[in-house]
């Protein structure tokens, strides 16, 4: 227990250090999350819209999940070197698959009757996509974004071994910060991850259209989805 008391003292004595490491941590996470979004979401939505590539889109998340994040970072270091950009690329590989799969499953799983009805009302393909499919797919797509984002913020801790900076640097640096510092770093990382999870959960509730609330209540990070890979058309999966 004494260790924890020392750690809390360390937290308060080193607020500026923790602050700057947190900023580094968030910068790296933000860069990786933004690029993952740009890569994964449009592609997932497009594939879902044309109902093609289900094998790729579904299996991508399964394979992505099976890749140990430390192994991805190890590959990044070996092939791309140490620093911000290699680490960011490794983090993109961590987040993009789950985002793509969720976007695909969300759009692909939109009720065909709703799409037919929209067409019957005279909507063009573009209008069907923008005004029917996307709103209905939003909660599940966002669930994937949330999972991926929280996952990136957690994994960014490991980025310190690859020179990516962030709060992990304190945890890996026993020599400079001592045991209280390491435990304090761990507390900070845990708090940051939980805060990110809460923030994204709130955001997810905010972006969910009123009519769909409740239907997708159970989607949280890691996503999981009961039945994850079994029934791609079941909202609440993946």
């Amino acid at each position, binding site marked *: 227990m004494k260790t924890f008391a020392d750690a809390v003292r360390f937290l308060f004595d080193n607020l500026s250090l923790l602050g700057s490491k947190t900023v580094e941590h968030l910068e790296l996470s933000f860069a990786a999350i933004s690029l993952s979004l740009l890569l994964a979401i449009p592609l997932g939505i497009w594939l879902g819209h044309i109902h093609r590539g289900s094998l790729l889109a579904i299996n991508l998340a399964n394979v992505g999940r099976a890749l140990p994040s430390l192994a991805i970072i190890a*590959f990044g270091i070996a092939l791309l070197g140490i620093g911000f950009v290699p680490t960011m690329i490794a983090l993109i590989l961590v987040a993009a698959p789950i985002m793509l799969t969720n976007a695909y499953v969300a759009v692909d799983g939109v009720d065909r009757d709703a799409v037919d009805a929209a067409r019957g009302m005279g909507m063009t393909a573009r209008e069907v996509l923008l005004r029917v499919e996307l709103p209905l797919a939003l909660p599940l797509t966002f669930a994937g974004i949330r999972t991926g984002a929280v996952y990136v913020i957690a994994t960014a801790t490991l980025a310190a071994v690859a020179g990516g900076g962030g709060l992990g640097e304190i945890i890996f640096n026993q*020599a400079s910060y001592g045991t209280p510092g390491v435990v304090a770093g761990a507390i900070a990382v*845990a708090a940051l991850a*939980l805060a990110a999870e809460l923030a994204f959960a709130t955001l997810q509730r905010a972006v969910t259209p009123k009519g769909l609330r409740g239907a997708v209540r159970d989607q949280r990070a*890691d996503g999981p989805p009961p039945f994850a890979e079994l029934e791609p058309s079941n909202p609440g999966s993946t």
Partner: protein
Amino acid sequence: MSTPWLTLVGAAGAPVIPDFGGGGGGGPSCARRNGTFCWDWFRDNWSDVFAPALGQHVKLTLIAIAVGFPLSALLALLAHRRRRVETPITIVTGTLFTIPSLALFQLLVPITGLSVLTVEIALVSYTLLILFRNMLAGLRGVPDDVRDAARGMGLTDRQVLWRVEMPLALPAVIAGLRIATVTVISLATVGAFIVDQGLGGPIFRAIQSGVFKTELIAAGLLAIMLALVADGGLVLAQRVLTPWASSGRAR
């Protein structure tokens, strides 16, 4: 109190003298040049470095699942009987799940030390949310008609559970087991920062010795292959155990 068995590049600010391939200049030349992948070095070190690490990794994973599975089953049965406990269990397991592995390991070190126990406690805690949620979803997913029919045939509650609900929940349970297993395999690599066990050991050591590429790639590839093989094995197990589940979804 905690003295992890290694320090990392840049971490302590200590200059790192690269020593690729070990043994002060021994070993194959491709390892000393630190090429992308030195097959000779990998073969020379398979039995001393990688095979034991792989074995330890499998053992860490099996223990975590063997402890996490019954624990989650207990929680799921509890929540199945009494709906009220579902939310608290979800919050607690969800919180544990969200804490990054490196942080959770370090938070446990002051309590349980730099030991395998520390690593296993963290690994088990990561399986709980996944297994609990999938088991409960599987049990709840049993159609009421089926349950009524079973009761109508005179089955007791216990028989309904064991002979109807559990078999029908099996696909969901195995889906959860797949996710939990690959998650544990992934996080067990990080556990090597606490105790030198498993495939994370060579990864951390390779970084420490000045980014020795062959060792990084070999250990990383083995971890990935282990995860894919375990996942594939569970898919096969599911096909065998629940033949009815695969026929319906050939889409």
